[in-house]
């Protein structure tokens, strides 16, 4: 026992000797060329306890971004490349820019006029004419003098600009020199944690890359901002010339060629898949018709009563009162039928989203490979602006309510798929294993364990989907979707402020009522668990 005790020695922190050798070797390995210099500076940085850096890297100051690139500190490279270019632009403007050139031009033309007047005075024979022309020439001379003064002023300013540029450059160089070693030391710390992906040492490849980038960027930018008469090539991308180069003179542009090719493809596809697209449209229409009959076909007092009672049962009395008020608003302003059409549209879209989305989500939750393949598509569905896919939808499915529902489904389905998959993956392995150990089949496992445990997540997905479908109501009126969205669109076209706002509030109340009822229903269910 006593041997162990003697081996363990407790040392106060202040007495601990710093083992420099391993650290030095590691810094040398990281820095590569010029290792000893970095060993020394890194030690200074490590010993420094104030926030003011105490080292100065001369090469970093002189070479600037080129030093950063050779040491693969790309963040510093880009930051100071941009800053130095700004400084160089100022210097360029002062050195070879032509400040006050417009005054100089004016003075030159005025000098010409003066010469003409003087000639006229010399050629004149009558004294009155001579006086008149001489007087005019004198006036001109005064104008020239004013302009020349202005030119001088501008040129004096130019010197100021140049000096500002020089000072800026100097400051940037100083900052680089002072902070370079600190930045490099940070890179060293990162490299110690992750030597695989953090670049170390000095490489010619990086130095060349930095030089190429600098040469490609700096002169063009400086030229563009300092010389008044710029090259036409740099102003705008020369797509016209390139089109001519590829297609020949008079054959239109690349844009035209690609666009008409795509149009032909889409038309051909629409024609070829005619039956399929018609089938989809009639399927969607069946669902929509069913809902429309239920909401708009039934007597309005019945529908109102059912909605109010649903709100009460699902979300409590406060939501029920709000629902009744919202229904009164729509009905009194004559929006009732339109509102019910909108609810039918959204309802049909949500039903289809859930019917397709939940099975897909279950599949993606079980198969990682399928999910990886589907993920880009889901991202696309959510990020693609709705206006973009409205066009192919018109091409394939025509206009009206069913194509509008299809557009809504594209936008609204990803959340329910994602959250179902997420919920399925979140089911604890141990509970699944237990069910299997007691003899559950795959179907029993899904029905008794996976779906019930994933249900909260699935319900969140359904709620999200409902809200996203609602947000499409106005957009789909662009392709002939009916309901309140169409009212808004018409008001927009005639800049009718009153009707537009009233219709807008009707949609807002609809959305709030739907959201409150659905959320209330889910919350109550959660509380039961």
């Amino acid at each position, binding site marked *: 026992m006593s041997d162990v005790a003697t081996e363990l020695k407790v040392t106060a922190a202040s007495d601990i000797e710093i083992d420099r050798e391993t650290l030095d070797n590691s810094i040398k390995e990281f820095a590569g060329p010029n290792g000893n210099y970095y060993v020394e500076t890194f030690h200074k940085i490590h010993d420094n306890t104030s926030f003011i850096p105490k080292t100065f890297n001369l090469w970093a100051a002189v070479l600037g971004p080129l030093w950063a690139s050779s040491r693969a500190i790309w963040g510093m490279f880009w930051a100071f490349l941009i800053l130095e270019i700004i400084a160089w632009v100022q210097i360029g403007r002062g050195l070879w820019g032509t400040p006050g050139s417009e005054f100089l031009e004016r003075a030159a033309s005025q000098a010409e006029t003066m010469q003409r007047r003087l000639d006229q005075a010399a050629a004149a024979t009558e004294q009155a004419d001579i006086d008149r022309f001489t007087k005019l020439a004198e006036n001109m001379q005064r104008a020239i003098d004013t302009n020349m003064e202005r030119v001088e002023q501008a040129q004096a300013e130019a010197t100021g600009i140049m000096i500002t540029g020089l000072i800026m450059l100097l400051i940037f160089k100083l900052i680089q020199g002072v902070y370079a070693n600190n930045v490099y030391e940070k890179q060293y710390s990162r490299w110690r944690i992750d030597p695989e992906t953090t670049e170390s040492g000095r490489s010619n490849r990086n130095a060349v890359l930095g030089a190429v980038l600098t040469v490609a960027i700096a002169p063009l930018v400086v030229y563009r901002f300092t010389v008044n008469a710029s090259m036409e090539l740099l102003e705008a991308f020369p797509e016209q010339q390139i089109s001519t180069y590829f297609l020949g003179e008079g054959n239109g542009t690349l844009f035209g060629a690609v666009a008409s090719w795509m149009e032909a493809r889409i038309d051909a596809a629409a024609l070829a898949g005619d039956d399929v697209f018609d089938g989809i449209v009639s399927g969607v229409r069946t669902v929509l018709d069913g809902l429309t009959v239920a909401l708009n076909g039934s007597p309005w007092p019945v529908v109102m009563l059912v909605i109010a009672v649903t709100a009460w049962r699902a979300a409590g009395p406060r939501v029920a009162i709000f629902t009744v008020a919202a229904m009164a608003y729509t009905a009194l302003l004559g929006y009732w039928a339109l509102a019910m059409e909108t609810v039918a549209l959204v309802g049909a879209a949500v039903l289809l989203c859930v019917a397709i989305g939940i099975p897909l989500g279950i599949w993606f939750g079980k198969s990682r490979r399928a999910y990886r393949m589907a993920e880009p598509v889901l991202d696309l569905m959510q990020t693609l602006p709705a206006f973009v896919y409205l066009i192919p939808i018109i091409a394939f499915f025509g206009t009206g309510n069913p194509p509008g529902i299809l557009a809504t489904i594209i936008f609204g389905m990803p959340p329910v798929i994602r959250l179902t998959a997420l919920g399925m993956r979140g089911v604890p392995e*141990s509970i699944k294993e237990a*069910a299997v*150990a007691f003899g559950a089949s795959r179907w029993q496992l899904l029905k008794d364990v996976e779906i019930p*445990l994933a249900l909260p997540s699935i319900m969140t997905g359904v709620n999200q989907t409902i809200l996203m479908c609602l947000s499409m109501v106005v957009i789909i009126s662009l392709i002939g979707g009916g309901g309140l969205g169409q009212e808004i669109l018409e008001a927009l076209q005639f800049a009718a402020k009153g009707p537009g706002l009233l219709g807008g509030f009707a949609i807002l109340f609809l959305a709030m009522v739907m959201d409150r009822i659905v959320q209330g229903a889910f919350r109550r269910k959660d509380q039961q*668990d």
Partner: protein
Amino acid sequence: MSETVVKVTDVWKIFGTRAEEAMAAVKSQGIGKPEVLSEFQCVVGVQNANFEVARGEIFCIMGLSGSGKSTLVRHINRLIEPTAGKIEILGQDVSTISESELRRIRAQQIGMVFQHMALMPHRSVRDNVAYPLEIRKISKSKRWAVSDHALGLVDLTGYEDRLPRELSGGMQQRVGIARALASDPEILLMDEPFSALDPLIRLQLQDQFKALVAQLRKTTLFITHDLDEAIRIGHRIAIMKDGVIVQIGTPEQIVMEPADDYVREFVQGISKLKLVKAHSIMKPLETHSGTLDGAPRADHGADLDQLIDLAVETDQPVVITEGGVDVGIVTKPCLLRGIQGGKDE
């Protein structure tokens, strides 16, 4: 304790995409674990396991984490498929039976208890216990009756309609045990059932479990990383290390005759009070010179604990008898050495 219920013969489990090739190489060339890893990128989970468990026996499999004990026990109900070898339950080879037959065996003949309880949070305690019966499509009235009976066995009457999360950890694990017992299985697989519980609750449950199994005569495979628990519960213990079964024996055999240094190291800290019996530490009668009249007497099967109780009452040694005849004595030095796991010379 004669009929064999579980028989495991030459079972290997190799994990990895090239497990079959690795297995073939192991069989033909006899390569070891490091070679399997370096050549085939496969990990050996279980290496050539052989054992039998008799009806009513509690067979403990003890090992540290990563020793393959959980993997091994999952072969019994084929939650994990063996790479090679044979597993028989009541004489039936489970590695060859069909999917539906396997499900029937899992539902009727094997009950399993898990370290993390694995109860379904959305079902009441009663419905959790009844789940194995529900899988077999047994009527609800029958299910509930069986479930209530099983909950009675683990002293949880009155909690049937609670949700699992309303119960404490120890109670939840008792629900797990009730669930495993509900379908009245032949075999119980216990995968570290008490490891996640407080020490006191663990002791309680161990005793409760031991009594329950003795009463129901279930054949049990009990996994644990705690040698104390294995000794308390097991009739026999198998010690595993790195996928290999190092030693199989009764608790006394394991403690008194460890097969190698690894087992010896484990056994060192184990209390011998209940394990070491009088006959293994006693000295011949002749070594005592004085009179033995009035000395306390104990049977040769008495353990150290009982001997100590007798010895503290007197200055004389304890006399050990066998069939009423005095056969030896246990002096105080004998006792003290015995507690250390040795013998007074």
